[in-house]
Structure formats: C-alpha cells, structure tokens
C-alpha cells in the first residue's frame, strides 16, 4: 500500500474523499438517513393523511400489549429453527457428497443451485399450487404412492402451514448454502484426512474431528445468513398465505406491513420496525460471539 506520491507532501490531500463521496452520499441518503429519521416516526401517531400527532413512547408501550406480537415472534422462531436446521443439515450433507470426485458433480451443483436465482414470488406461487389441497401435485403424488394418510391441507391447516412455508424456503436456498459449504470443504487439506486414516480414524470420526471444526467459519456464515433471513422473512408468507390461516403464519415483517400499509399506523409500524431491527442485530451478534467462541475451544 505504499503508493509513492512523487514530489508531494501528504498534506491534507482530499482527493481520495472524492472517490468515496458518491458512494457515501448514496449510502447516507438512502440507507443511513431513513434509519435515523425513522426514529422520529416512532414517536408520532400518523395515518399518512391527517397531521401527525406526537405521542412520545406510546407506540412502544402499545407493542407490549399487542397480542399478535408474541404469536408473530414465536412464528419467526419456529421458522428460524426449521429453516436453519433444515438448510444446514441438507446443505452440509449434499456438500459432503459433492466433495467426492464424482462424475457429473458440476451438473448436480448447477441444478441444485438453480432455485437461488428464481424470484420468491414465482417460487411462492408455484408452491401454492403444488400444495393445493384439492388438485395440488403433492397430494396427488401421495395418493398415487398409496400414502393417503399423509395427505394434508398443507397451507390451510393451522398446525402445518408454517412448516410448509419452511420447506419452500429450504427448497429455494439449500443449494446456496451447499455451495458455500463446498467452498469451505475444498479449503481443508487432504493431508489431514490421510494422517487421520493412518491413525485409524473412522469416517465419522474424521467428520467430527476434522471436517466440522475446520468448517466452523463457513458454518458461521451460513447460520448467520439463514438466521437473519428467517427473522426478516416476508415474501414467502405474504405471497403464499398472507399470514393465515388464523395467523398461524403471521411473522413480524408481515405484521409490520399490515400495521403500516393496511391499517395506516405508520408510527406504530415504524416502532415495530426498529424493535425487529434491534432484535435481529442483537441475535446475530450473540450468535456470532457464541459460535466463534465455540470454535476456539
């Protein structure tokens, strides 16, 4: 980095700032500013039309008594547990298989990754049809396989709907996490395994003693990404169930959207946005701290 600056003394050289300025301005105006200005919104009651009314912390107080929030948070937690565990196990499992010198592995890799580039809306609508209780592909298949006892109303049953959405999320993203795991696996030196083999370590031992610990950084990335995704999820429940039936798939982001854009409680919705933001940030931080400590020990 020793960029020689001939003949010039490094004195208050401001040119580099000009390089950064456009990006910075954009970032400040369209990201940081809304985050800061928005704090004001949390203190008002405003339906977007009548003049705003200052209400202090009332919006935050309301959050404490909002019956829907515990429900929505619980749904987010379930969603997170389902997607994170599902994606990690499936992605790691497939990455391990693909890490062998198999013929056609790049074809497998390419196909399994494909849903990642598809839009959530397309995926959501497509799966709504697959799940359709009457005519959907899934129930049709189960019927053909004589597994009629497994036929369910995938999106209409309050006990099942959320998990149906979890499956769609996993379907869309496991290829992505798999590829990240694969990249991580390829950084692990084969010599380690050879040494382990000479010591007589079984395959499972190699996995727990070498692969898993060395994958820790990649695992951290994967878990963080999918965890944050799960708490910010909006598209899939909005397109597929709109939070129903009976609020069984209502998640926080959807609750914010409904409060703001269906019932015009902009102040309240803004307050909810910040609560969710704080929650996700804290959670991600705790999770990262926890996981990196684990990888040290």
């Amino acid at each position, binding site marked *: 980095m020793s960029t020689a600056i001939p003949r010039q003394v490094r004195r208050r050289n401001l040119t580099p700032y000009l390089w950064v300025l456009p990006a910075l301005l954009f970032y400040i105006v369209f990201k940081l500013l809304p985050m800061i200005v928005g704090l004001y919104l949390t203190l008002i009651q405003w339906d977007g039309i009548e003049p705003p009314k200052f209400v202090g912390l009332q919006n935050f107080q309301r959050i404490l008594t909002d019956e829907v929030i515990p429900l929505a948070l619980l749904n987010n937690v379930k969603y997170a547990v389902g997607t994170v565990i599902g994606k990690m196990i499936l992605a790691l499992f497939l990455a391990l298989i693909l890490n062998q010198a198999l013929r056609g592995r790049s074809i497998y890799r390419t196909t399994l990754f494909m849903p990642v580039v598809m839009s959530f809306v397309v995926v959501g609508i497509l799966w709504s049809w697959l799940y359709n209780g009457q005519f959907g592909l899934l129930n049709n298949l189960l019927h053909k396989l004589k597994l009629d006892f497994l036929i369910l109303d995938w999106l209409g049953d309050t006990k099942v709907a959320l998990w149906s959405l979890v499956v769609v999320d996993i379907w869309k993203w496991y290829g992505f996490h798999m590829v990240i795991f694969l990249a991580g696996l390829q950084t692990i030196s084969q010599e380690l395994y050879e040494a382990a083999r000479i010591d007589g370590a079984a395959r499972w031992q190699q996995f727990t003693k070498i692969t898993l610990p060395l994958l820790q950084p990649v695992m951290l990335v994967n878990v963080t990404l999918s965890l944050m995704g799960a708490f910010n999820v909006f598209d899939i429940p909005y397109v597929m169930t709109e939070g*129903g039936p009976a609020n069984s798939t209502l998640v926080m982001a959807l609750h914010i959207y409904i409060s703001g854009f269906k019932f015009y409680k902009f102040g309240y919705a803004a307050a909810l946005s910040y609560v969710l933001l704080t929650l996700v940030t804290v959670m991600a931080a705790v999770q990262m701290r926890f996981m990196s400590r684990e990888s040290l020990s």
Partner: protein
Amino acid sequence: MSTQKLSRREFLRVGALAGVGLTLVACAPAPGAAPQAGNAPAAAGGGNGPYEGKFVIMSAGNAEQNAPLIKGIEEAHPGVKVEWRGLTSERYTELFTASEVAGDQIDIMDLNGQDLRRYAVGNKLVDLSDIDYKDRFREVGLQTYTVKGKLWALPRGGISGFPFLYNKKLLDQIGVSKEPETYTDLLQMAPELKKIGAAPVVHAGKNIYLWPIWQFFAYAQTSKNDPVEQTFKVLSGQTKFTDADHVAGLEILGKYASDGLFIDGVNSLDGDSAWIAFSQGKAAFWYNHSSQVGTYRKGTFPELDMSLMPPLRSVEDATVKRMLPGGTGSATCIYAKIAPERLDVARKILDLMTNDQWVKWANDLNKDPVSTNKNVEASTDELAIKYAKECADNQFTYLDWYWPPEITRAFQENQQALVAGTKKPDEAATSIQKVLDDLYKDGYKFEA
C-alpha cells in the same frame, strides 16, 4: 496533476454541488410535488374550455374489463385521456392511501361499498347531495351511500349479494328434488353427498372478506333479522361482540365446521380454488357472490348445473327470515382534493358512468339481478330473476361497510381459528371485541 490535490474549500464546494445534484436528480420525476398538499395542479386547460389531459379513475375493477366504458368516456370528452387504475378491492385502501400520501393525481374513485364510509367520514370525497339526476337511481342505493345526511357516492351497477349457490346436478344424483331450506336438511344430505365424493359446502376461507360475510348471514338470523341496527349498537359501544346473539352467530359457523360440512382445506381456498372445486362437482353448495352467475354463463362446465337460493336457515326459530348480505353496486365518487379545473369534467363523467346506458352495460357484464337505476331492466338471466324474486327483498347491507378494516380482519382470523378448531366461539368473540376496544383507545368513533 492539480486534480491530485484539492483544498478543503474546493472539496466542500464539490461536495455540496454533488449533494444538490443528487437531490435534484432525486426530485426529478415529480417536480414541485408537495406530498402533503396533494393537489398540485398540473398546468392544463386554463380558465376556459373543457379540460384536456390525464384523468385518473381509481377503481376496484380492472381496466381490461372496463375498456368499453373507458372508450365511451373518452369519446364523450375529446381530449380527456382516462387513466384507469385497477387497484383490486383487496388492495384498494392500501394503494389509494399510498397514492394520496404521495400526492398523485386522483379524480374519480370507484370503490367497493365497504370502503365508502371510511372515506366519507374522513372528508376524502366531494359532497354530491346537489346532483339533479337523483331520480334515475333506486332509493336504496342513494340511502346506502348517504352518510351523516350527505350523499357521497353514486351507486353504479347492480344490487346483488351473497346467496347460497348450489349444484343441482349433485342434488339430483343423491335423489334430492326439493331445494333444502334449513341446516337440518343439509345435515341429512351430507352423508349421501360424501358417498358420491362431494363435500357439502365449499367456501373461499382464505379471502379476507369472505368469512366475515358468512358471519353476516348467520348474525342476521341470530339477531332476529336485525343485523344492521344491532351492529351499530356494538360499534357505538352500547353492546358487545361478546354478547349472546353475536356468539350464537359464530356458533353457527362452528357447527358447520364441527359437523364436517366444509370441504377439506376450506381455510386455504381462495375464490379461484373454491370455484374450481364447485364447478368440478366436488362440492354441492358454495357461499359466494351472485355475480358468479356471469362467470358460469361464460364458460362450459359439464359437472355443474348451477342454481341459487337464500342462505339456509340455521337457527331453530322458523319465523326467522333467511336474510342475505349484499350491496348496491360500486360507490362512484369524486376525490375531495381534485384539482379545480377537473371538477367540472369529473361531475360530467360521473353522470355518464351512472347513466342508464352504461349501468345497463355494467349489469349485463355481471348478470346482476337488480339494477341500481330505476329504468334499467337488469339481466334477464333466469338465475338473476330467481335472485330478484327470492333474495332481493331480504337483502341487507354488508356489515363491514360500517366498520373499520381492523374488525373485518379480526373476524377473518378468528373465524379461521374457529373452523380449524383452535378457538371456541366465545374465545373468538372475545378477541374480536378486544380489537374494537383497542380502536376506541386509538380514538375511533362510530358515526351512524
């Protein structure tokens, strides 16, 4: 190499310039838009002569279906370019508010009736009490759109509502020739229907408006045929949704569900899926809007021989009338903050949209049983006539035309839970009442 080094002053100047530039770029698409003011008048027309230019109609109906009407308006008003925004009824309020907050041009609003009250009370509409062609409308339509003694919207289209649609073919198959009248009749038919692979009842339980509508017909019976007035009492705080008559209404739904009369997965069906099930002969009864007759006549459905009747009597008391919820066409109104130079043309277009010729056109489109206009003969379709004869007299206005959307949503959620068996009728009622109580806390006040 002078660009290599800048003085601090130069740096600030460039920075400020860049900032201003960015702001300008940002504002470019809406020069001078004052978001709060709403009615930044686009320079057009000037004082004299008819208005020429863009004219925005925000409708719950889509532009494609209304293409002939749009053409008709443009022909009658040369130079006017109609921009028909089909917002759909589900997203109407949402998109309208977004447009209003942003200060977009809005001229005529063509609403579903349930939204009218909100806009009338919120001073969003031009008072239409002074129009001189009131005598073209049927009285009931004008009454429906009168709030606080003023007329805010003109009824356009048909007077129609929610009867029970049924498939005669399936009834024939199980040897039922007499139209059922009560819940008990249906209950007796149920096992036979299931034997031939058909569910007794299908309903679009996913659609936010449709479980509430189910409650309207049920409550009309449990309130002893006084649904509207009794609902006013709740909304003004004199009675509660937890009172016996409302809970009894919810119990009716609970009974249909627990007796296994609904098709599997009723909570996940939207209108389309419900129609597929019904038209394919997978369900004998469907609780849906009478305009479905129009769809039925347009296609060929070998499994379906459709008919309609008032909702089944689902209470013991045989003197209770089988009332059904309905409405009086769409509510066509003028946006309060319309630019002054467009007000005149807006009034003329409103006149055109509700005249006999175009109302007739709208009626035929939907196979409406009764027209909103006196002198328009509504559809002569045999089912439309059956509706006019058996249902029209017992029609009352959808209750959600009187209450805020939060209540509609609360009903939908809790009725879904009721059908799924996760809540009991009284628990559902308690949750719904809580939503109303919260609205009071927020300053909601009902004005009859």
